[in-house]
């Protein structure tokens, strides 16, 4: 079974600073996808960034980037120039080509003005 681990229940960052959220996963499959979702207090899950396992290049979306280490089964999210609107729960998720999505327990990010 695939498992996703987020070891940081809470993180905080100063506005305009950079923060990295950790995620590790366990799988025996070679073809899979990894995601970071953001869940603000409104409860709406929003896709932040995705990474295909076959791509060596780390995905980037504006201020959000990932450090994908396939051999280490690590998938961290870096948020640069943090903004107050980045405050939310962040979930790391894994999906193989054949299975449902598996989510980590989440990291609550606080942004201090």
């Amino acid at each position, binding site marked *: 079974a695939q498992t996703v681990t*987020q070891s940081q229940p809470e993180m905080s960052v100063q506005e305009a600073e950079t923060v990295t959220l950790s995620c590790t996963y366990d799988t025996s499959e070679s073809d899979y996808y990894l*995601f970071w979702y953001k869940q603000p207090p409104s*409860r*709406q899950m929003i*896709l932040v960034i*995705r990474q*295909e396992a076959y791509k060596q290049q780390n995905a980037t979306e504006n201020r959000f980037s990932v450090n994908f280490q396939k051999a280490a089964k690590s998938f961290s999210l870096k948020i640069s120039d943090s903004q107050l609107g980045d405050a939310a729960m962040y*979930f790391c998720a894994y999906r193989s080509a054949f299975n*449902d999505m598996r989510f980590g327990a*989440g990291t609550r990010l606080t942004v201090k003005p």
Partner: protein
Amino acid sequence: GAGVSQSPSNKVTEKGKDVELRCDPISGHTALYWYRQSLGQGLEFLIYFQGNSAPDKSGLPSDRFSAERTGGSVSTLTIQRTQQEDSAVYLCASSSGYRSYEQYFGPGTRLTVT
């Protein structure tokens, strides 16, 4: 276009009552998922529908939970004889195909069992 919608947004029920939660996926999306999110926790997979295939029910926590998807579109999650531990936010998501990897989430239904 319209996103995934869920109703009701909030539901308060007495212990022992049955509840039905509804999900309207994005039009044309063949895959539909239900998740449960307890307070401050991650998402727990419940059930997955893909087209006309038999649903993957492996995440349903007990036989009090069931779901159906009519006409390959709208889905209803039913919880019979609700218990206080069923209190959670129930999230629905849809995606465009079996190998499509992006899920689009609804706003969820917050269920409170008193």
